[in-house]
């Protein structure tokens, strides 16, 4: 049920995407996205009854490997890119109180 006629709630979607936008950016995006969604509306013209969705153009399923433990790499190397690290850990703002 599309609501593209309503004002596109950029602020709400930005929050879902964890993306901080300025007032200016929000206004500009709302206009641009409305135009793009208008173009996308034409997909509604098509009859897609009984058409399966394609998630993967070259279908494969259950690509598994043997459940064998193996080394995952050198953590010291990975921590070199960390914005903040200590004692072999990524230091980040508290998530759980």
């Amino acid at each position, binding site marked *: *049920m*599309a*609501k593209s006629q309503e004002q*596109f709630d*950029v602020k709400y*979607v*930005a*929050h*879902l*995407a*964890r*993306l*901080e*936008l*300025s007032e200016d*950016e929000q206004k500009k*995006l709302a206009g*641009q*996205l409305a*135009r*793009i*969604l208008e*173009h*996308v509306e*034409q*997909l*509604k013209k*098509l009859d*897609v009854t009984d*058409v*399966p*969705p*394609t*998630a*993967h*153009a*070259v279908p*494969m399923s259950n*690509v598994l*490997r043997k459940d064998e433990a193996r080394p995952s*790499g050198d953590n010291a*190397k*990975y921590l*070199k*890119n*960390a*914005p*903040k690290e200590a004692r072999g850990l*990524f230091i*980040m*703002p*508290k*998530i759980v109180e």
Partner: protein
Amino acid sequence: MSLNQLTIHELRDKLRRGECSAREAMQATLDRIRAVDGKLHAFNHLDEADALKQADAIDKSGAAKNGKSLAGVPIAIKDVINVEGQPCRCSSKILEGYISTYDATVIKKLKAEGAIVFGRANMDEFAMGSSTENSAFGATKNPWDLTRIPGGSSGGSAAAVSADECIAALGSDTGGSIRQPAALCSNVGFKPTYGRVSRFGLVAFASSLDQIGSFTKDVEDAALMLRAISGHDAMDSSSVNRPVPDYTKALSKGMRGKRLGLPKEYFIEGMDKEVEATVRAAVDKLASLGAEIVEISLPHSEYAVAVYYIIATAEASANLARFDGMRYGLRVAGEDVIDTYGKTRGAGFGAEVKRRIILGTYALSSGYYDAYYLRAQKVRTLMKQDFDEAFKKCDAILTPTSPTAAFKFGEKTEDPLQMYLSDVFTIPCNLAGICGVSIPCGFTKQPKLPIGLQILGPTFGEEIVLQVAHAYEQATAWHEEKPKF
């Protein structure tokens, strides 16, 4: 001719015969970059010492004489593919300071064949764009006209090959990002079938559409690159377990008995007249070489851009969630963790990336998923069926690669939709997962700007695409022309 102006096969032959060293070839390449990249900005980063070190190692090991197919060949890498020890920025501020901790599988494969893997080629940020104007480090210029775009998102790779700043380059193609810049810069841009080449080590944009491919100066080189980088990879569960043929065997087979399809939906009212005339002349050329031209229909073509900008942006919104300031790259501290995510991503992503993340998030959000994402996936099925039907009537499909030649900087940045519509000919190939190439087929008159012919093949039909491309190339001289700037 200086060594950087050669093709892979020409340089390989010289190295094999001992007529030059890998070091000399790499030095000639670096000299060229120093001379022209100030004007072009094809490269974001260049580690000269490392490149020369690799060249010396190749010379010392005698790999050129031991049959390694790419030994000593300098290959530039789009800034979206991980090379251990080198920056991987995806032309974005959000990956500030990031140094790759591993080699992508394609890089391992190139190195195993003795190639010299160097440079970080400029691109649209996170591969989102058709002009390389969305780079956080500034645009790349088209070597044929410095006031125009080279195409995108692999604009740096395309410009570097055209300007002889490398012998070949890697790029990535999600909606045309190899084929379109190849058309606009006059080189051979090849997108393999989805799953033919491993995506391990490619920073993901849209996981069901992305493929790594090559920019080369001719079709023989494209066959050499494809053979080197293709193959199943346990680290990429979307890579297909299928043997890699010797793609060079597809060359020099002519056009007799081949049927080439022309989709009527691709030659439309209001198309650029020079592009249309030039591509039709290329079709006539292939007919004169013995091919049978058949009219085909791809009835759902007009929906390609709409389908793509729902599916690709939805997948991108998921893939770019990892850029959150926690484990790598830029971190802008906020009041709490959510605020830190928001500020980091707000500061680190450019406008186009933000636009696509918002669009993709919306398309997947509760209440809209069925109307947008699911519906787009169903139309994708219809588009794939169009190609399945078409390939019953022809062996390969011919189209223009781009509706226009290279446009001027700023010409399409005001209206994102206009930019998106310029991908109309390249997008369907990614949606269907099939393979395709763009090859040079002529130029506009004034100014002289390249025009590309796109050849599409069925899934794992790389050989037929190479066969057609090579036949056309060898009967023409477009691939020998070089830009003067």
